[in-house]
């Protein structure tokens, strides 16, 4: 029986695989050829015919070495499903959303500042003032960005929940940022001993959440909503084909 390790190593010698990879692959291919020979002999072939069959399989494709190299090196370029369905559309929407806001601010568009009053009642003794900052042109863009993100996710095969998450990604990130800022503010406020910081921060936090999370999410909802009732692209395409 030939030395299959030597034969397979010869096939891989011209590839750019590392020595360790080359050793691993040649060992595995040698095992395959060894099994092929054993199997062929158990089916009644003599040793030379079985060896010939294994050699024929090894040399069947002249580009085997380069194919194996490309397959082993594919990993860094591959995007998994979660990246395609969620992260790519979500991150792109977030960047587009922040970019649009920055452009609007650079062009001199001002936020409309509105105080939101929550009037006192039986349980709340005093009226509460919540400061709101509303960028109307930006809010008008958000349904389109949300729709674009949900559409991208749907085309990539994302489920309805993933499409919605991709659509609302920017609002979710804003909320996470605000929560982090609030947490650090409380910690710093506690460290410097400012006992009034909690009340002030709570009101400002409520205003910021309303301005940068709730209202933008509602605007985005107009864009995302039409996608939530539809089947994803592969399902629809296959349905049409059937």
């Amino acid at each position, binding site marked *: 029986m030939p030395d299959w390790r030597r034969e397979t190593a010869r096939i891989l010698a011209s590839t750019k695989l590392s020595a360790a990879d080359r050793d691993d692959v040649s060992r*595995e291919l040698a095992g395959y050829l060894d099994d092929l020979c054993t199997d062929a002999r158990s089916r009644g072939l003599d040793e030379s015919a079985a060896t010939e069959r294994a050699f024929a399989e090894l040399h069947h494709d002249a580009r085997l070495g380069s*194919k194996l190299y490309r*397959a082993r090196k594919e990993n860094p370029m591959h995007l998994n499903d979660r990246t395609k369905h969620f992260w790519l559309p979500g991150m792109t929407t977030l960047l587009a959303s922040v970019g649009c806001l920055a452009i609007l601010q650079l062009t001199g568009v001002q936020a409309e500042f509105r105080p939101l009053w929550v009037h006192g009642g039986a349980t709340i003794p005093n009226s509460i003032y919540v400061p709101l900052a509303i960028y109307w042109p930006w809010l008008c863009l958000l349904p389109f960005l949300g729709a674009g993100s949900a559409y991208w996710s749907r085309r990539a095969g994302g489920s309805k929940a993933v499409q919605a998450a991709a659509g609302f990604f920017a609002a979710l990130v804003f909320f996470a940022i605000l929560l982090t800022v609030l947490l650090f503010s409380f910690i710093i406020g506690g460290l410097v001993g400012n006992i009034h910081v909690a009340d002030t921060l709570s009101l400002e936090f409520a205003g910021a959440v309303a301005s940068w999370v709730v209202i933008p999410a509602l605007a985005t909802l107009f864009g995302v909503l039409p996608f939530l009732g539809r089947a994803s692209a*592969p399902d629809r395409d296959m349905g049409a*084909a*059937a």
Partner: protein
Amino acid sequence: MISANIKRGSAELAILSVLAGPPLHGYEIARRIERQTNGTLRFTLASLYPLLYRMESRGWLRAAWGETPAGRARRYYRLTAAGRKKLAPLRKEWKELFRALARLAEAHHA
């Protein structure tokens, strides 16, 4: 002529399907597919290993060296959670495709 994408898609489905059971090494995968398809699908060393490595790189398969009952070292492949997740929709898509093609063929004969 069958396009490379269809060929690769069907080969991926075949490999994921046989690996839904216990872990197998390369030669076992090839023979099991051949046996279960009555020889319709046949893998050679050159068609099998590049695909196995690609599927491993994508995280659908995980491989580890082990020993056969005869004490020979072989690299055994098994499905990962991502591979199992990939298998169900792939099966559905191929079933739908074959059903559609069958209808098309029947309509042509009618």
